[in-house]
């Protein structure tokens, strides 16, 4: 037997724990009454703690991984960034005062915001380079873009207030039914594929 396989009793213990936890949480979901609630409360609190531990372990694993290859620039940058974040976060005030706030306000926030701010530029560049009005889909795309842009421009909406109503109508009468259809279709598709898979394996 390979040494990577845990002992039998550990495997049985983990299965028993998973069944107990899942059963209690599922029961509580449908019947949030006295005894079930009493049982679910410590289970859920433990899950929150465990999730925190998982995050810590993931961070430790990341540091160990990049620590082994610290000569590479990207790994060195990761280690410096992680050390800086951890150090300033542990100082009194955390990220809400002092050096932690400075790191957050002048490094983290502008860096992250810059990432998202690039997205419209990429989209506009793609639109400029790839838009071809000889396809119906391209026309619908461009028309939808212009309509939503108009409906969110303050000067346009102030001049023509019906544009605000148009935005609401587009969301309520067009976008919501389509998304609801997608959600329902997705659920039915998952169920169908599951049943088909099960049938295929048993047969």
């Amino acid at each position, binding site marked *: 037997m390979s040494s990577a396989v845990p002992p039998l009793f550990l495997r049985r213990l983990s299965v028993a724990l998973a069944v107990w936890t899942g059963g209690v949480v599922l029961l509580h979901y449908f019947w949030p009454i006295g005894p079930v609630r009493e049982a679910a409360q410590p289970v859920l609190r433990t899950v929150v703690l465990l999730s925190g531990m998982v995050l810590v372990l993931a961070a430790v694993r990341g540091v160990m991984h990049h620590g082994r290859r610290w000569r590479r620039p990207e790994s060195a940058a990761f280690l410096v960034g992680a050390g800086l974040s951890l150090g300033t976060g542990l100082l009194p005030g955390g990220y809400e005062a002092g050096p932690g706030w400075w790191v957050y306000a002048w490094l983290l926030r502008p860096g992250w915001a810059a990432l998202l701010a690039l997205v419209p530029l990429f989209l506009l560049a793609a639109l400029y380079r790839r838009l071809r009005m000889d396809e119906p889909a391209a026309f619908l795309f461009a028309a939808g873009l212009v309509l939503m842009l108009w409906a969110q421009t303050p000067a346009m909406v102030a001049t023509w207030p019906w544009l605000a109503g148009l935005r609401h109508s587009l969301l309520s009468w067009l*976008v919501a039914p389509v998304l609801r259809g997608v959600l329902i279709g997705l659920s039915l598709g998952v169920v169908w594929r599951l049943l088909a898979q099960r049938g295929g394996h048993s047969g």
Partner: protein
Amino acid sequence: MSSCRYCGAENADDATLCAQCGRVLTVPPPQVLAQIQGVLPAEPVILSGRLPPGDEALWQALVTAVAASSPPPPSSPSPATGGPAMRIGLGLPMVVVILITAVLTAAGWRSDLSPAPPRPGVAAAYHLIAVLPSTARVLLAWDYDPTTQGEMQLLAQPLLRHLLSRRVVLVNVSLRPLGPAMAAAAFAGLETAVPLAQAPVDLGFLPGESAALQALALAPAGVAPLSPAARDRLALAGDEPITAFDLIIEFSAETATSRQWVEQIAARQPVPLIVAASGAVAPALEPYAQTGQIVALLSGYPDALAYEALLGIPGTATERQMAQNAVHLLVLAVVIAALIRSLRRRPSP
């Protein structure tokens, strides 16, 4: 020893690739929900170690596996191209309409024009907050990152101003690690400092997503350690459920977290849920707003502006109207340029 099911060669127990033919020895059984393309991420077979260089059989096995898992190419090119007629018939009028509208707007717009009527979601959120008594507890969920802070803070601040004017007890919580910093930044960005007596109680970051929300629903005061002062201000018993709150407001830039709030809290508890979402997320949440699980859904900059107009207190959103106009017109100019470029382009083959 285990034998390869392809070539029959004997391999060590812990081997993952056949030493003879290089194929994968142990293929895990298909798991629930695996292999549904586009719905869930693929579950790759993790191989220990790397492929040794120069072993052609292993590389061939890898190439075969990748080719087998790739979707087949489309059998025919995309149909339905309208050609020059569509370009001239639809594209040209579109450019003309956009240009005329832009010119008319620029000519007719004045800064003293009254704002547009608010959407029903904005009015509903305003009235829900306006009727809160001063003893009410309001849970604020900060589920966005610095990436979307520019948009989300604009939306959060009018709501915070309104809540502070009602003198209710505010409680911060977040499913995102940087959520507490987002909350602090939103409060710090208000024009007037928050009085100490109204400082929010911080439950901090809750890891565990859906399970964390269930724990929060069971006993909000029990999920995070609180200082005695915060405990006094919150005035909640350790095992009191989330129904002790009068209102929940989630600031969200992610569909998944809002869906968790709806599934774990709003669908099962009688506490009304307001979601203030980024413009990109709000359309995906509209079905939940239509079913009433989200009582009021606010979306992006336009709703921030509308809320400030309802409050009657001009804030950051009002101050940035000119900047918003300028950026939107710039984007419109690029769209017009793309349309004109498209009209001059040869039809696609």
